[in-house]
């Protein structure tokens, strides 16, 4: 639907050039083009681009190792693809440090941009650029936390599998032992105790697993709450400002009213005085005249 007329444009440029040459209009010599614009390389743009490239590197790194990281790996898989837990922890730590540095860098850029005296549009533009970078970083962080959540779930599931397996070996072991040392009743008692312990452990494990799940959920919720509380904090701050301003205004208003009352009273006193003086002067004139 949209027609690309760039070629047409370039053709018109050529036409205009030849026309100018024909007319003999002097235009800037091509030498200037070599010097190009030595525009002030304001440090903002390259730095911002650097931050973005860093975040992209992190994203690529995470995506690259995602398969290995997430692979539950059966107990008998090739060692090449499996990552040890140490490696996974290492990746977690590195990723976290990296994300922290990136957000620090963004904050720093923001402060720098605020300090620099520039036009309003340029400031707005830079603010918006930093917002975009932050959103990008948040997206990559989400990737990371998703990965991590999957990993936690897998380890929890794995532990469950591991716990249920030792049940059988324990029982076999019991039965294989020689019965010279213990009487059959004691053996039975031991067996019962074992069963009891095992079932107790199982229930504990169940409870712990449930609690872990809940805690993860609660931590997520808590994150949301914290965000909301911070929002409310800013709002409360502004309301506080307004209220302070309002009290100031009311105080001043009271002062003004007090002033007005005083003036009113003073005015009345003067009027009274004037009237009394007038009446005295009338009486005096009257007495003087008669």
């Amino acid at each position, binding site marked *: *639907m*949209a*027609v*690309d*007329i*760039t070629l*047409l*444009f370039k053709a*018109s*440029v050529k*036409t*205009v*050039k030849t026309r*100018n040459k024909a007319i003999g209009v002097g*235009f*800037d010599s091509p030498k*200037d*083009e070599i010097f190009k*614009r030595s*525009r*002030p390389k*304001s440090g903002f*743009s390259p730095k911002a681009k650097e931050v*973005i490239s860093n975040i*992209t590197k992190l*994203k690529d790194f995470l995506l690259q190792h995602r398969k290995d990281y997430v692979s539950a790996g059966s107990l008998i898989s090739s060692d090449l693809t499996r990552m040890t837990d140490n490696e996974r922890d290492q990746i977690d730590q590195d990723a976290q440090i990296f994300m922290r540095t990136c957000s620090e860098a963004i904050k720093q850029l923001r402060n720098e941009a605020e300090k620099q005296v520039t*036009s*309003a*549009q*340029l400031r*707005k*533009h830079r603010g*918006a*650029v930093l*917002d*975009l*970078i932050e*959103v*990008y970083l948040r*997206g*990559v962080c989400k*990737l990371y936390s998703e990965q991590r959540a999957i990993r936690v779930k897998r380890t929890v599931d794995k532990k469950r599998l591991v716990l249920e397996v030792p049940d059988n070996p324990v029982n076999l072991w019991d039965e294989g032992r020689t019965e010279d040392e213990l009487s059959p009743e004691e053996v039975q008692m031991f067996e019962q105790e074992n069963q009891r312990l095992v079932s107790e452990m199982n229930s504990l494990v169940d*409870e712990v697993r*449930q*609690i872990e799940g*809940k805690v993860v*959920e*609660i931590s*997520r*919720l808590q994150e*949301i709450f914290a965000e909301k509380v911070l929002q409310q904090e800013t709002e409360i701050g502004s309301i506080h400002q307004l209220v302070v301003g309002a009290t100031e205004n009311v105080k001043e208003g009271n002062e003004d009213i007090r002033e007005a009352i005083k003036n009113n009273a003073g005015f009345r006193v003067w009027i009274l005085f004037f009237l009394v003086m007038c009446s005295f002067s009338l009486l005096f004139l009257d007495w003087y005249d008669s």
Partner: protein
Amino acid sequence: MAASVREKQAVALKRMLNFNAAPLKNTAAEPVWKVLIYDRFGQDIISPLLSVKELRDMGITLHLLLHSDRDPIPDVPAVYFVMPTEENIDRICQDLRNQLYESYFLNFISAISRSKLEDVASAALAANAVAQVTKVYDQYLNFITLEDDMFTLCHQNKELISYHAINRADIQDTDMEAIMDTIVDSLFCFFVTLGAVPIIRCPRGNAAEMVAVKLDKKLRENLRDARNSLFTGENMAAGQFSFQRPLFVLADRNVDMATPLHHTWTYQALIHDVLDYELNRVVMEEGAGPEPSPAGARPKKKNRKTYDLTAADKFWQKHKGSPFPEVAESVQEELDTYRAQEDEVKRLKCIMGLEGEDEGAISMLSDNTAKLTSAVSSLPELLEKKRLIDLHTNVATAVLNHIKSRKLDVYFEYEEKLMSKSTLDKSLLDIISDPDAGTPEDKMRLFLIYYITAQQAPSESDLEQYKTALLDAGCDLSPLNYIKQWKAFTKMAATPANYGNSGVKPMGLFSRVMNSGSQLVMEGVKNLVLKQHNLPVTRILDNLMEMKSNPETDDYRYFDPKMLRGSESSIPRNKNPFQEAIVFVVGGGNYIEYQNLVDYAKVKHGKKVVYGCSELSNAAQFTKQLSQLGQK
């Protein structure tokens, strides 16, 4: 037309904003920032389609008007979206000289002429900035899409192509040519974006015919030009999903003069009539206090609120065509559902408080955490719903206030009766001389409709009586002169339009609909129910689409740009009924016709109808144009 026109235009805009490459679906893609520069035309096109947040998501950090003061922002590409007019080109050249941005992507809303392109080229040369002008495109997006199936041609400078401009007595040929060219250019852009070549039908002897002839010529030229035809390649592929070509019906405003003046009863049309509603945005004043403030106090500040009525607003999409009382009820329903959900969330809080003390409550806790999670995740939706409900409550209350103060329901009922030629129970004179029923403008509208729809002109004495009554009420009588002329003219030409039978039943005997606890108490406002009827434009469309034979439309001319030889005959070659149609009214359209067409399309399953007009005017603006015409 698999995707609607609105989606196609939005997709085209997004492509343009992505430097004319297809936008990637990658969720975590690297941000590329850019600056968007538009002129007023571009602003009108973009604002109904993309919100500021969507622009931000596409990486646009700043969006500025072309003719404002702009500071240099180095290292940033700039996307221009402007009309190729002289001032705009000059301003672009100035920008190139001042080297405001790093690279320039020029997108012209409609095709730029060769000479203007050379102007830009010479300016770029002079500024040594040729390398910076990275791309130049003709976007062919010179129309404004307001809804999925409604578009208009322009909003800025709309008086240049308004009804008044086309029909005034002192119009020159050159002016007319210029107006026709503007309209045809926009229609051409519309069909390029749609990707289909229509079959054109138009009446004889008026502005619509001129538009049709020119449009046919332009489409034909473009189709013949094999090298850069715009209707080949991927455009055609998209359009070929529908095996038929759409029908394009051109109508002139003169075929139906009563509808623009009509008082209406559906939600969207009412908002357009009564409030300030442009480009899907309502501007209202809040806190209109009826009592005068006590002496000495500072006057209460009225703040203006703007509301955007968008496609994402589900309530709006469902109810914009419903009669007003239905809207009031639905708002109340939505409010109730919202309150119920809010109460549930609050109740959860109490439950949580209690359960925290219980010892072995792990199992119950799990249930509650699940509930809590779902409640928290649904909070943003709830907030959004609340915002929409507030918005609609405010808007509907404002409309209701207007209805009550101007007694618009009485006018509506009366006009419906006039237009359907059923018996009138109150005399026109009563309504006109009633001092508290509506503004003088309302009375003038009513009288004009009466005059237009009367079979014979009222006698001289009657007319004088009406005129004095109107003058007493404070109306301006100049529209009447023009309508007299128009009526004389159309009586010669054809039979006057028949508005079909419409019945208006006042619902029941109660004249008040009280909703308990509702803020929208419709006391004293009659609850009128609309019976389906067809306006003249809808009937014309019906005849043409179904190939029915009707004396009104048999006379229409037939154009097919794809045929090798243009023929003068008005015999359609295609005998099958059409599945898709585009109706375009030259000289001004309104939401009432749009709503009527939407209702018609709903009744006929499988047919798609798109409504377009050269400009949207509500009754007040139209009356003003008529009075200007009558004063000559």
